[in-house]
């Protein structure tokens, strides 16, 4: 069973921006996939459609054979963790509570009213915190941590969901090189040890080469490249980072050429 199957997804924003122009792809369980492309390529849009933060204009998304709809949203998101560029922690809550929010989807709204969590949820959260090596910060307010630490709390929150997939949208774009490597190492080890599929958006070619099992290159809302990092030649990268108009034009030329052929 594939982790994620996207079929001919198109996303056009209400303001007319065409961010994703018909992409089909399959993510295998336990793989580390990097979506590579320049900024504005449509990476975030693509990733956010995988857990329903954006709804495709047309096309379908299946997660573990479940079609993403308004009805299945909650159960799907429960098993899909997400890590953000800006960490997206609730700064005024302490680290432990932030990690515990990863358990909310399993619990009713009434039960969470009083900020009371079950012992087993604490256990899971504690484990997740230990996994990212931040146990000693459990009671500190999240906004008092450094960027790298906050990102690790973000990962712990995703782990607390007991996910089978983690989506990471530019997880290291706000971090310095040293912490970036730490965070990516962590994601990679989670992927390999816990058999969790990781899909990460990156715009740095070096990190992609270092960490990816599979690279999906995107530009102007289209898949330009799909293969192992070893196949990521300079020509591919050059094509990937070409300005969108050039690609549009190339496509247009190709299309007309085909039409006349």
């Amino acid at each position: 069973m594939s982790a994620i199957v996207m079929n001919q997804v198109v996303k056009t924003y209400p303001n007319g921006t065409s961010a994703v122009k018909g992409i089909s792809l399959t993510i295998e369980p336990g793989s580390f996939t990097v979506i590579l492309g320049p900024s504005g390529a449509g990476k975030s849009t693509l990733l956010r459609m995988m857990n329903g933060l954006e709804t495709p204009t047309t096309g379908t998304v299946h997660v573990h054979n479940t079609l993403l709809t308004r009805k299945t949203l909650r159960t799907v998101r429960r098993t899909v963790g997400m890590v953000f560029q800006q960490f997206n922690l609730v700064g005024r809550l302490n680290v432990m509570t932030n990690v515990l929010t990863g358990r909310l989807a399993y619990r009713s709204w009434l039960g969470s009213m009083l900020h009371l969590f079950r012992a087993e949820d604490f256990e899971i959260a504690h484990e997740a915190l230990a996994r990212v090596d931040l146990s000693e910060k459990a009671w500190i307010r999240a906004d008092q941590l450094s960027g790298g630490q906050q990102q690790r709390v973000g990962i712990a929150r995703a782990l607390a969901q007991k996910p089978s997939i983690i989506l990471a949208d530019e997880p290291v774009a706000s971090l310095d090189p040293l912490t970036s490597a730490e965070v990516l190492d962590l994601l990679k080890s989670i992927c390999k040890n816990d058999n969790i599929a990781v899909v990460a958006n990156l715009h740095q070619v070096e990190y992609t080469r270092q960490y990816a099992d599979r690279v999906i290159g995107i530009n102007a809302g289209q898949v330009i490249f799909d293969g192992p990092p070893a196949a990521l030649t300079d020509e591919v990268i050059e094509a990937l980072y070409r300005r969108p108009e050039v690609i549009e034009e190339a496509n247009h030329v190709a299309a007309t050429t085909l039409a006349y052929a």
Partner: protein
Amino acid sequence: MAVKPLAAQSLPPLPPRPRNLMPIWATALIGVVWLAGVQLDISPKTLIYGWDDIVEYFSRYGHPDFSQAPSYVKLMLETIAMGFWGTIFAFVVAFFIAPFAARNLSPNAWTYNLAREALNFMRAMPDVLLALVFVASFGLGPLPGALALGVHTAGFLGKFFAESLERVDKGRYEALDAVGAGFSQKMMYAGWPSILREMSGYTLYILDRNIRTGAVLGLVGAGGIGIALYDTLRMFEYDQSAALLIILIVTIMLLDRLSSFVRGKLH
């Protein structure tokens, strides 16, 4: 699960959990409120048993009588004018006192404390009370009302202006100090221009508030729509009261929209 997995047992321990005092504070607060309720002899029963009476009472306002609307509108305008004059008065007073009430600008501790105490005093006196005093000494009419609003809100505006002036980056004042500018020059070229936007926001807010409050000053004889409202309520003329209340509410809701629109423009 019969046996805990090994990994769970070897987890690094969490640091000791800091004491969370929130529940204690919340309980204490509820206790105090409850005691106060007992002391004031308030029981929710009054409300529940009297509910039908209350509903019946409010239904008496069902037939507003607008036959005297023009004179009511004039009274409403009087109330608006009262609020406007009060606000301008407050602005002028605050403009001259605030620089002395800002810690970083006041020439010395003495003027600072004096200015702050003056503003505190003005703020502490409820405007209805001031209106009572002014009506008693100046006679009935909107003017004592405007003065009462002005004095009370000058305390507010002065405090807000002073706090904004204190928040201005100190480099701006230093730059003016460095060119040898005097106190008033520092205000005109660094202080006021830096807080212009906040000032206009606060002043609009106070204008809004003064028009609202102006509507009740009539109750103590200070002019405006309040007098008519008080009289009709006292004489149980519900139809007239209803008309007055509607005019008042609609005007104030319109002003509310207007002022939030203008405030939005400022930002």
